[in-house]
């Protein structure tokens, strides 16, 4: 009898600890969002999102973040476009031409799992060596290329995950009408449109928030670039650089940028949820 009750108590204690652990995690999320909003909201103004900084982003007290907002949008649009162009063919090849157990398919999937885990600073350093080798300076183009490398594993893994679930019968149905494999690409893609959208949202989230990859390659500037060879400002770097400024108005810009970035990321999460209700391993 006594033994029994000890067991009960033990289970109770651990269950309590588990609930506390879960709550801690949930609360820390709220703490982060609250801290960012609390500090960022007072710094927000219409000028913040509609003006570029004047007098230098590090010292100038006037102006806003338009350079970083536009810059991030440029980088993300460019890299997601490039990323989709290179990852869709790979995913299609894996799913159309290779069987699940083929050596090449297994190695490719593993390699993208691994590349997914490589930190962005390494991609940044690699992008930098590539830039030096090609004689480029930090620019919009270099930033786009590096972020593309960063998001390709995300795109491939998450599109592959949904494409693997396309029923074999659907492929068979199209094939049995006499279609060649390249002719069933279109129905295959149509079938996984929600998956592709989710993948793109994930990639946008990662691309827009990553600082280490653009640090070396995109540079930073007060103005909005007009060509691919000019440096470009980005939101994460706007936070990073301006936060270390001694001038409080400049720091305000950093906090406002943090608020904007958090808002964008939250929005992306919500949209991704709408398109895929599943708890996907590709979000981590």
């Amino acid at each position, binding site marked *: 009898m006594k033994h029994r009750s000890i067991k009960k108590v033990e289970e109770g204690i651990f269950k309590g600890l588990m609930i506390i652990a879960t709550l801690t995690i949930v609360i820390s999320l709220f703490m982060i969002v609250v801290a960012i909003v609390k500090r960022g909201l007072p710094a927000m103004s219409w000028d913040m999102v509609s003006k570029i900084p004047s007098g230098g982003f590090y010292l100038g007290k006037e102006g806003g973040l338009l350079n970083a907002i536009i810059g991030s949008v440029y980088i993300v649009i460019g890299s997601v476009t490039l990323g989709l162009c290179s990852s869709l063919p790979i995913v299609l090849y894996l799913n159309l031409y290779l*069987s699940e*157990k*083929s*050596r090449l398919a297994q190695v490719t999937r593993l390699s993208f799992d691994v590349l997914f885990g490589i930190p962005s600073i390494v991609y940044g350093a690699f992008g930098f060596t590539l830039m030096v080798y090609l004689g480029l300076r930090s620019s919009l183009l270099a930033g786009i290329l590096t972020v593309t490398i960063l998001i390709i594993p995300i795109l491939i893994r998450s599109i592959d995950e949904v494409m693997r679930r396309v*029923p074999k*019968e*659907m492929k*068979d*149905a*199209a*094939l*049995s*009408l*006499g*279609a*060649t494999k390249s*002719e069933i690409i279109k*129905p295959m893609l*149509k*079938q996984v449109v929600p998956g592709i959208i989710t993948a793109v949202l994930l990639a946008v989230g990662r691309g827009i928030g990553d600082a280490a990859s653009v640090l070396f390659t995109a540079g930073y500037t007060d103005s909005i670039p007009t060509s691919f060879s000019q440096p470009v400002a980005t939101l994460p770097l706007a936070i990073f650089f301006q936060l270390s400024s001694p001038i409080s108005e400049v720091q305000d810009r950093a906090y406002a940028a943090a608020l904007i970035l958090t808002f964008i990321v939250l929005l992306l999460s919500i949209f991704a949820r709408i398109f895929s209700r599943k708890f996907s391993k590709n979000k981590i």
Partner: protein
Amino acid sequence: MIPNILRVEKFIDVSAEKLHVEKDSVDLAKANQILLSNKPHIRVRNLNVHLTKNHILKNVNLDIPDKAITCIIGPSGCGKTTLLKTFNRLLQNSPEVKIDGEVLVDGENVHGKNANIEEIRKKMGLLSQRPCPLPMSIFDNVAYGPRIHGIRRKRTLKLIVEKYLTEVGLWDEVKDRLKSPASRLSIGQQQRLCLARGLAVKPEILLGDEATSALDPISGKKIEELFLKLRDQYSIVLVTHTLRQAKRIADYVIFMYLGEVIEAGPAAEVLNNPKQKLTQEYLSGNFS
């Protein structure tokens, strides 16, 4: 071109199953003869299929008659579906699958090195267990096949779509919403749509992989009726696990067990007077 006599034969079989003892043996023999004298449409010779280490099909030799309904019966896992898939080469040599032997369609080996795989598949319409509409509109589903085979003219496509949707009795039901996604149709309608889609590339053979098992009884009956209607124009091969369906519509029956063909012959003969002990036991429900 199925001889009428065979149909009568089968009618007797279905309507009065117990009567088979007194069946007219002369008629039966004659029916068999006619059926087999039809030039076989598909001939399978020494077909062996290995899936990784499992021997799925063991030395299969078969003739599938032209313009008739052939039912492949047998307990689940006996290789029926695998056999069907070797016909249009949806199962082909790969690291996991090893196929030996020949499947001759109109004399051409499907698994030969120089076989034009798309042309072969075009010859054979496939109806799978669950209907698989492609992710596009009703119209586009039927037009998909003709389109990939090079038909671009809108008017021709419209005519084709109407013709085959009418053929499967779907035209009146969907003619006002051809542009809506095929996935909105009911399962039974979807299966008929898939049949129309298959017919639209003008096949000579129809393959059905338990094509009615996922449907409600009424939709299933409609599909069966369509098969009966179509058998004058197509050679139809159906994998079925309901014996009753074979009894209702089969002209020719193949019984498989553990990857081997145990018995094959005209429906009346195999279903009523099986020669093999295994077939007898299966038919009497001793295993399934």
